[in-house]
C-alpha cells in the first residue's frame, strides 16, 4: 500500500495540505478554540481567578450532571425527537434515590446507597421506556409526551414527600457528587492519566494497522504523531490541574473528582454506542431518513423506545450526581436542566433537523455553557442577567454552526 499513500506526504506542505494530512475535525477544533477564548477572556476580566486549579476543578464538577444527560440528548435529537422531561425526571429520580436511602433503608450501610442507585436507574429507565412507547407505538409527538412528563414528574417529586427535603444521605453515596471526599487523589489520578495515554497510543497504532490491512488511506506518520499529541497533552494537563487543587486544611491534592470520572466513562461508552454499534448506526439512519431506515428493515419503533430508555438511564446517572452534590433530596433539583441539556447538545453541534451530532461535542457544549455561567458568577453578574447572556450565546452559537456547515457544503 505504500505506493498509494497520500500525495501530501511527498509534496511540499502547504497550509491546505497540512490540514488535509492531519484529517482533523475542524469543527471540533473550532469549538475547543472558542472554549479556550472564553476561558482566557474570563481569566483576564476576573483578574486571574478563572484559570485557577480550584475554579477549573469546580467547573468540571458543576458540568458533570448536565454533560452526562447531554450525551443521551444527542441520540434523542439525532433521531429527530426531543426530550423536555429530563430536568423533571432528574428531580423525581433524585428524590426517589434520597427517600430509599434516608427513609426506607437508613442504617443499612452500603446496601442503602446501592439500592438507591439501582432503584433510581430502574425507575428512570422504565419512565424513559414508557415515554418512548407513547411516542413510537401510540404516535404522540415526542414534544407533547415529554412536555407532559415535565409536568408529571416534577409534580410527583413534590408528592413523594409533600415538598420536604430529604437528608441526610449515605456518605458513600455523597462521594458520587464530588465534595471534599469525592476525589480519587493524586496517585490514582496519575494511574488513570497514564493508562489513558497508553490507551490512546494503542488505539492509534491499532487503527493505523487496520486501515493498512484493508487498504484504506492512512495519514503520514508525522501527522499521526501530531494528532496523537493533540489528544495526549490535554489528558496530562487535565490530571495536573486536578492534582494542583489542594484540599483546604490538609493540603492534600484532590485529584480527579468522582462525578468527572463518571462523565468520562459515560462519554466513552456513549461514543462507542453512537459510532460503533448497530443501535447507534440505526439512530443516525432514522435521523437521516426515517423512511429509508424503515425500508432497510430497521425496526424504527423499537429503536425509538430504546433511545428513550438510554436517555432515562443517563438521567438516573445525572440525578445521582446532582443529588449527591446537594447532599439532600429536593423536589426542585434539576429545574430548567432540560433546557441546559438541550442547549449543550445543540451548542455541541447536534442538529435539531436530525441526523447530525457527536457525543464529545455535547460534553464540550455543556462545559462551554457552565464556563459562561461560572465566569459570570465570578464577575458578580445577577442570575437573571446570566440567563440573558446564555440565551444570546445559544442563538449565536447555532447561527455560527449553521453558517459553517453551509460554507462547507
Amino acid at each position, binding site marked *: 500500500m505504500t505506493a498509494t499513500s497520500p500525495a501530501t506526504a511527498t509534496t511540499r506542505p502547504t497550509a491546505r495540505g497540512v490540514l488535509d494530512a492531519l484529517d482533523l475535525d475542524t469543527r471540533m477544533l473550532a469549538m475547543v478554540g472558542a472554549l479556550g477564548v472564553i476561558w482566557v477572556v474570563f481569566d483576564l476580566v476576573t483578574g486571574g481567578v478563572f484559570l485557577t486549579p480550584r475554579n477549573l476543578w469546580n467547573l468540571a464538577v458543576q458540568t458533570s450532571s448536565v454533560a452526562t444527560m447531554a450525551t443521551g440528548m444527542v441520540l434523542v435529537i439525532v433521531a429527530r425527537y426531543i426530550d423536555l422531561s429530563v430536568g423533571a425526571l432528574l428531580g423525581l429520580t433524585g428524590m426517589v434515590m434520597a427517600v430509599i436511602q434516608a427513609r426506607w433503608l437508613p442504617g443499612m450501610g452500603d446496601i442503602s446507597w446501592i439500592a438507591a442507585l439501582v432503584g433510581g436507574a430502574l425507575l428512570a429507565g422504565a419512565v424513559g421506556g414508557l415515554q418512548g412507547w407513547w411516542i413510537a407505538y401510540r404516535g404522540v409527538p415526542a414534544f407533547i409526551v415529554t412536555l407532559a412528563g415535565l409536568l408529571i414528574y416534577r409534580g410527583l417529586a413534590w408528592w413523594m414527600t409533600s415538598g420536604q427535603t430529604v437528608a441526610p444521605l449515605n456518605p458513600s453515596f455523597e462521594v458520587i457528587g464530588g465534595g471534599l471526599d469525592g476525589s480519587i487523589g493524586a496517585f490514582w489520578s496519575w494511574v488513570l492519566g497514564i493508562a489513558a495515554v497508553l490507551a490512546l497510543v494503542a488505539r492509534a497504532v491499532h487503527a493505523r494497522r*487496520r*486501515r493498512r*490491512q*484493508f*487498504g*484504506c488511506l492512512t495519514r503520514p506518520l508525522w501527522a499521526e504523531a501530531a494528532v496523537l499529541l493533540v489528544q495526549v497533552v490535554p489528558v496530562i494537563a487535565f490530571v495536573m490541574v486536578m492534582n494542583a487543587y489542594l484540599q483546604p486544611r490538609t493540603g492534600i491534592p484532590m485529584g480527579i473528582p468522582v462525578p468527572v470520572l463518571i462523565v468520562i466513562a459515560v462519554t466513552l461508552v456513549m461514543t*462507542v454506542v453512537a*459510532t*460503533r*454499534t*448497530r443501535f447507534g*448506526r440505526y439512530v*443516525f*439512519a432514522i*435521523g*437521516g*431518513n426515517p*423512511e*429509508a*431506515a*424503515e*425500508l*432497510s*428493515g*430497521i425496526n424504527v419503533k423499537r429503536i425509538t423506545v430504546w433511545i428513550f430508555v438510554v436517555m432515562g438511564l443517563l438521567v438516573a446517572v445525572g440525578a445521582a450526581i446532582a443529588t449527591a452534590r446537594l447532599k439532600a433530596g429536593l423536589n426542585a433539583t434539576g429545574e430548567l436542566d432540560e433546557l441546559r441539556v438541550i442547549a449543550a447538545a445543540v451548542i455541541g453541534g447536534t442538529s435539531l433537523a436530525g*441526523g*447530525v451530532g457527536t457525543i464529545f461535542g455535547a460534553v464540550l457544549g455543556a462545559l462551554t455553557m457552565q464556563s459562561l455561567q461560572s465566569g459570570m458568577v465570578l464577575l458578580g453578574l445577577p442570575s437573571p442577567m446570566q440567563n440573558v447572556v446564555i440565551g444570546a450565546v445559544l442563538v449565536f452559537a447555532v447561527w455560527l454552526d449553521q453558517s459553517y456547515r453551509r460554507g462547507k*457544503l
Partner: protein
Amino acid sequence: MTAPLVEMRDISIQFGGVRAVDGVSLDLMPGEVVGLLGHNGAGKSTLIKILSGAYQASSGEIRVNGEPADIRSTRDAKKYGIETIYQTLALADNIDAAGNLFLGRELMTPWGTLDEERMAAETRGVMQRLNPNFRNLTTPVRSLSGGQRQSVAIARAIHFNARILIMDEPTAALGPAETRMVADLIRQLKAEGIGIFLISHDIHDVYDLADRCAVMKNGKMVGVVRTKDLSKDDILGMIIMGKNPVTGAVVY
C-alpha cells in the same frame, strides 16, 4: 419448464376506501426483465412495494420459486432474495456509502461492534465493478452526485446476492452516460439469471431492455405483452387508453 422466480396472484390492497391495486397478477422468470408501466398513480409502485415488503396486500398470494412466500416486512423480502432500488433511493443522507450499503445488514467484529474497515473494503470492491470513478467512500452520501447516489443504491441491492431485483424509475435522475451504465448493468445482471422488474412511466426507458411489458391503469392490469410483438406506440396506447391490443379488453 422452470418455475417462475416470482408469481403474484390476484393481489389487491386498499387504503381507506381506495383500491390502489385491484386483483393484479404478474410473474417473473429467471433472467427475465419485465417492464412495469403506467401513469403516475396507476398502482405500479404500490404493487411493487407489496412484493418488497413495505406494504402488505389485503388479499392475494405471492409465490417465490413455486413456494408460497410470507412477506410481512422488507426484511422478509430480502430473505427471499428480493432487493429493491427505490425511486427515492432510500439512502440515509448523513451516512457514508459503506454505511448505507450495509444498512440493516452491518458486518460486525467479534466484539459486537461495527466492522467499518471490512465494510469499507467490501464497498470499494462493489463500487469498482459498478462505477470505477467512485472514490468518496467516507463522505456522507448527501454530498455525492445523482449518479453516485444511484450507484450506492444499486450496489446495496446487488451486493447481497439478489435473485429478484426491483428497480423503481432507476434512470429518472440520471444523465445519458449514467443511464447507459445502468442499462449495461441490467443486461449483465440478466445474463447472470437475475429476474428484474423495471418500473417506469415512460416506455422509452424500458422498451429496449424489457422482455415483457406489464401495463397498469387505475390499479388494474391492462395486460402483459411480449415487448417485441408490439411497437412503442402500441404499448403507449395501452398506457393511455388502458386497452389490451391482444384481447381488446379495456380498463377504465
